[in-house]
């Protein structure tokens, strides 16, 4: 058994930021990441981010990933990184089982920060499992990280920011985006992203969804249909579109299964993307010394994941006796940044969701 003060599960923006603030406070940590590189979802995002300067707005996601990774590599004695390593088991006494190169490794930690992010949702329709039907983020990885195209002709399902951004990036890579379809009666994402696509001649069909996919070994075509106000298909409005790729971008859901393993109190909150843990103002779950940060406790954005990471790293270090010399100032600053990010109409659902999981009962 290996002993650690702090294990951070997930090396995305939230996990990296937590490690940085823990190190600045004097606390060592181990980051465990199942991919072969650090950076989480950011490593494939070639677009410039929104938000404020503090969270690297106007910088491309791939470059933000580099900044965050460099930030932790500055502390080689304090932050240990294990990539290509998946956390497969978690126990209430804070023993963690890691799988690395076919070997199980057990680690006993004093505190744990779970920052496993979120995964893309699927959509139910006949033949939705055909090869050629992908999560939009997966296609983004294939194109922007591996430099491989998903196919020649694609339809995007979902007009949220991810659907719109990935459609644009598909066009940039030379793929023909035949249209974007959206079940709701209005476009979900920001107007700037939608306008960019429209300028390239891509139609965004609202009140439309996929009725079925066709193909034997791989996707060959899809049938789309108009929806009425109850999101039921309108008979007679079906249209067949020949495509070799279909991207599904209908939201993300938190990767919270590790939390369920140790009996953390959870709740299904649809505005946060799915099953999320109850947390207190310190991001501690109902199991003592088990904390969460980033999309795993509510799907938001990289900007909020970064600040939640900083905040949680700062707090956990202090709880283990490593109080940052500017603790109070930083604590106030991070809290204010989060409040700011969630202000305004776009943050309303998040604010309501977070109220639902605010924990006020005692920890186990």
């Amino acid at each position, binding site marked *: 058994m290996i002993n650690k003060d702090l294990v951070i599960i997930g090396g995305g923006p939230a996990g990296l930021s937590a490690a940085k603030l823990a190190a600045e406070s004097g606390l060592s940590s181990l980051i465990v990441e199942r*991919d072969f590189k650090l950076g989480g979802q950011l490593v494939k995002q070639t677009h410039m981010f929104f938000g404020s300067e503090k969270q690297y707005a106007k910088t491309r996601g791939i470059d933000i990933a580099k900044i965050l990774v460099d930030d932790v590599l500055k502390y080689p004695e304090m932050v240990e990184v294990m990539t290509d390593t998946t956390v497969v088991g978690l126990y209430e006494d804070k023993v963690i089982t890691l799988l690395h190169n076919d070997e199980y490794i057990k680690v006993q930690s004093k505190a744990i920060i779970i920052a496993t992010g979120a995964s893309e949702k699927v959509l139910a329709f006949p033949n939705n499992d055909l090869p050629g039907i992908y999560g939009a983020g997966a296609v983004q990885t294939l194109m922007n990280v591996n430099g491989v195209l998903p196919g020649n002709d694609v339809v995007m399902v979902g007009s949220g920011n991810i659907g719109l951004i990935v459609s644009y990036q598909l066009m*940039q890579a030379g793929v023909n985006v035949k249209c974007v379809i959206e079940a709701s009666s209005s476009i979900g994402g920001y107007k700037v992203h939608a306008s960019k696509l429209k300028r390239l001649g891509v139609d965004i069909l609202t009140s439309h969804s996929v009725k079925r996919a066709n193909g034997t070994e*791989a996707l060959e075509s899809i049938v789309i249909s108009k929806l009425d106000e109850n999101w039921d298909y309108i008979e007679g409005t079906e249209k067949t579109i020949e495509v070799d790729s279909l991207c599904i971008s209908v939201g993300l859901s938190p990767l919270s299964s590790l939390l369920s393993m140790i009996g953390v109190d959870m709740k299904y909150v649809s505005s946060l993307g799915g099953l999320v843990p109850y947390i207190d103002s310190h991001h501690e779950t109902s199991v003592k010394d088990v904390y969460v940060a980033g999309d795993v406790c509510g799907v938001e954005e990289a900007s909020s994941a970064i600040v939640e990471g900083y905040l949680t790293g700062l707090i956990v270090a202090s709880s283990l006796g490593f109080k940052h010399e500017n603790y109070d100032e930083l604590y106030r600053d991070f809290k204010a940044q989060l409040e700011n990010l969630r202000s305004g109409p776009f943050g309303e659902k998040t604010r309501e969701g977070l109220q639902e999981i605010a924990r006020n009962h005692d920890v186990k």
Partner: protein
Amino acid sequence: MRITEHPILTFEKKAKLQFVFDGNEVYGYEGDTIASALHAMGVKKLSHSIHLKRPRGFYCAIGNCASCNMIVDEKPNVRTCVTLLKEGMVVKTQLNKGDLYD
């Protein structure tokens, strides 16, 4: 199909890596995952559903959905979307839940 020109990214040609896919000698490039190398060759079918044997390709690319599981160097259930390609790998399409291996 590989991207050759891109307004933001540059994809320099990297070293070729030879590997075996279902008995055929094929190749990918350094930095490829097994799934991306196969995809670049036009191979989209990576696994099969367990009962109905329906073809499956990759879906999440983050190692979460098991839709890309293949047999790699005799080991079944390898998530090929998060496994880097290595020279000489032997990759096979998987048709069952996976057998025990040494």
